[in-house]
């Protein structure tokens, strides 16, 4: 669910002695625009942490490490398998509120009674545009486009041999605007995601058989309760550091097949957990509870270390290539 696009490799251009307009624009942008970085997901006085399961709507400089363990059911009579995964994603702003990302996942799959497999999934590239941000209403809307590049993962892990495009809409909404009578609901925030996963090829041939690729929709939402917001904007509950930086949350995320023989089939997880927010990084942990038998029977675990590169390296890696705020 976290994929982003790519550009084609640049082709060689003939040399020219004339002043190159692209070169000129690049120089003007890098020298004349203000040198400025943006800190993470802040709307008014509300801080949105990066959620573990659902892509968050903020375009930032960040490095996310996500590790997990779960038992997945086997398909078509195959045994279930214990899966340990480590996902790495790096996001880089090229403009304020526009970020590119690259990510991949290393998996260790141990089928019951079968041979252990390990390897990487398909490389995922993406772009995210934070298109609407309103501090006073605590609203942010973003669009993203991802691509999982076929044939870049290990065939042992049955990585797709076709690429998948994933356009998505992302929402962040804080509830600080609720009236005082609903004061204890004001620390609530909602993050939402709706995306399509569209294979670029309708079908491929595996062992002489034609295998159709389905379009699926990825969906999800997260409900967060910000204790820092509660303390500073609603009522000081005397919760002190480090506990005042905890954000309890529940994420619900899944995938639903839209057509080609599997219409309506859904898998997903309910993931309750905690995020602890530091000044330069955050830590997260969630349980992963399957939403139905198709997803599985066992509860998994998801752990996150998320680095705020804009705070760690504000003068270099952590700021947009071109800045115009």
């Amino acid at each position, binding site marked *: 669910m976290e994929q982003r696009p790519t550009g084609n490799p*640049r082709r060689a*251009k003939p*040399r*020219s002695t004339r002043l*190159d307009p*692209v*070169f000129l624009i*690049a*120089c003007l*942008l*890098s*020298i004349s625009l203000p*040198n*400025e*970085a*943006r*800190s993470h997901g*802040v709307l*008014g*006085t509300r*801080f949105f942490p990066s959620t573990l399961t659902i892509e968050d709507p903020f375009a930032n400089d960040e490095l996310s490490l996500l590790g997990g363990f779960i038992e997945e059911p086997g398909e078509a009579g195959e045994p279930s398998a214990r899966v340990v995964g480590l996902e790495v994603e790096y996001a880089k702003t090229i403009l304020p509120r526009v970020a590119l990302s690259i990510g991949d996942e290393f998996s260790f799959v141990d089928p019951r009674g079968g041979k252990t497999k390990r390897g990487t999934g398909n490389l995922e590239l993406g772009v995210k545009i934070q298109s609407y941000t309103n*501090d006073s209403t605590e609203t942010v809307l973003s669009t993203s486009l991802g691509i999982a590049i076929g044939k870049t993962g290990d065939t042992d892990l049955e990585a797709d041999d076709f690429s998948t495009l994933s356009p998505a809409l992302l929402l962040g909404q804080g509830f*600080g605007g609720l009236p*005082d009578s609903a*004061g204890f609901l004001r620390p609530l925030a909602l993050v939402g995601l709706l995306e399509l996963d569209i294979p670029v090829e309708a079908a491929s041939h595996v062992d002489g058989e034609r295998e159709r690729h389905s379009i699926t929709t990825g969906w999800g939402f997260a409900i967060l309760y910000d204790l*820092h917001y509660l*303390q*500073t*904007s*609603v*009522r*000081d509950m005397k919760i002190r550091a480090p506990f005042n930086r905890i954000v309890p949350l529940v994420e619900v995320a899944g995938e639903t097949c839209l057509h080609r023989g599997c219409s309506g089939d859904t898998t997903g997880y309910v993931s309750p957990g905690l995020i602890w927010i530091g*000044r330069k990084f955050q830590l997260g942990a969630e349980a992963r509870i399957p939403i139905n038998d198709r997803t599985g029977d066992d509860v998994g675990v998801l752990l996150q270390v998320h680095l705020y590169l*804009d*705070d760690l390296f*504000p*003068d*270099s890696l952590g*700021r947009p*290539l071109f800045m115009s705020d």
Partner: protein
Amino acid sequence: MSRCWRTLSCLLLGLAIPAPVLAHAMLESSEPAAGERLRESPPAIVLHFDQALEAADCTIRVKSAEPGRSDPPATHDVEVVDGTAGAGTTLRLVLPTLPAGRYRVLWQAIVPDGHRTSGDYGFTVERTAPDQPDAD
């Protein structure tokens, strides 16, 4: 040098120019605290932030949350003072004596790079000071 390399070198040059540390100032704590009920009027609103602030542009306003009651007058300017997080990290607004009632603090904090955060919270004064007439 190819166009690609010239463009890339120019971008790297831009990256190498030092930039100020930029982030939003986050409110750490306040006096009175959010939701606090005070026996008497507080002498001042004090807001503690996690980083240094730009003195000229920060604001604190105190508004009455009682229907039909006028807001307390602004008798002093907002000051930036040293706080627990370092020099210039705390905002203070000296208040006139407030009559009993509910109040709302609206604040805006701006750091030297121009990034701003804002927020609000409420507190209650339970008793009017003996030498203070009741508000209408």
